[in-house]
């Protein structure tokens, strides 16, 4: 009806003939974890009395980015102990986003629900655990009723805050990451299919065939845009995790 035949949404993932349960998403996730580990392992093996070079430079620039760009802006100086956690989140999400534009792989692993959901549940458990650890059971009272609200509003505000912290936070973290990457993936598929359909069109109107260059140009542009989106979404996920953690840390809500 539309003239374009979209592949079914899971077509690129179906490896049932080769492996029954392991698919491309799993492969990308494993690869991302291994590559991240390898980079930081190699960097940590270098002699740290000399000036850093090669992979250590790269690793140090990432650490600096997380410390200055994420933690100092949200938690502040006492949050520097969170660097390993937030940096692993950032590296893993970035490396699972990136295959969306790498030829052959062509699939961001975060564009399916499993990985974003697992990551945001991890963040959720982490910030609630941090809150209980730092403020005891009073964390929940603090969570439900921000200081200074009138008594007659307490039931309403408590309900809203409960729903927004317990349910909406992990849901919106998940959906934000997944939908961004899936939107980009579908955009790439659309322009790829469009240029393919135009280049190989069996039509009497010959002027249509070279028109395929237009979606191809757009495809290149969207690919460049996806590099940006992959980085930005990893950054946003990390910074939101840092914000939630900083809200859980003991009473320093006023100083930033």
């Amino acid at each position, binding site marked *: 009806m539309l003239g374009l035949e979209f592949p079914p949404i899971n077509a690129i993932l179906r490896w049932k003939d080769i492996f029954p349960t392991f698919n491309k998403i799993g492969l990308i996730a494993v690869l991302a974890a291994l590559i991240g580990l390898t980079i930081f392992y190699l960097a940590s093996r270098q002699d740290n009395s000399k000036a850093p070079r090669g992979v250590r430079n790269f690793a140090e620039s990432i650490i600096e980015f997380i410390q200055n760009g994420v933690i100092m802006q949200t938690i502040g100086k006492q949050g520097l102990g969170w660097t390993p956690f937030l940096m692993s989140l950032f590296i893993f999400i970035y490396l699972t986003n990136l295959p969306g534009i790498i030829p052959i792989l062509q699939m961001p692993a975060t564009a399916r629900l499993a990985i974003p959901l697992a990551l945001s549940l991890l963040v959720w458990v982490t910030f609630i655990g941090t809150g209980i650890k730092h403020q005891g059971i009073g964390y929940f009272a603090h969570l439900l009723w921000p200081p200074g609200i009138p008594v007659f509003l307490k039931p309403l505000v408590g309900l809203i805050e409960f729903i927004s912290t317990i349910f909406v936070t992990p849901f*919106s973290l998940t959906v934000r990451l997944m*939908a961004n990457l*899936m939107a980009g993936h579908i955009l790439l598929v659309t322009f790829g299919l469009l240029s393919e359909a135009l280049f190989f069109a069996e039509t009497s109107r010959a002027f249509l065939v070279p028109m395929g260059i237009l979606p191809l140009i757009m495809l290149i542009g969207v690919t460049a845009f996806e590099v940006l989106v992959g980085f930005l979404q990893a950054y*946003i996920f990390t910074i939101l995790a840092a914000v939630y953690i900083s809200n859980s840390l003991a009473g320093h809500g006023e100083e930033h």
Partner: protein
Amino acid sequence: MEALTQLVMQASEFSADEAKSISAAASAGLAYGLAAIGPGIGIGFLVGKSVEAMARQPEAAGLVRTTMFLGIAFTEALALIGFVVFILLKFA
């Protein structure tokens, strides 16, 4: 979507499956289009104000930028939920 399917079937000679896919495509487009209006206005407003703030106080640019990204992330979530509805209607 069910009502739209009935309407398409009454008004034309499409079969039930065709009518269903037509109404799915139409309602998916409508859902995403409506969901994109608010966040579009919101993000435009937010980034515009942030640029204004950065121009007034360049030394606070780092903090403003972080806060801007946070605001964009929260605003954009609405549009993305609309996009998820689009996917659900289109491919389900």
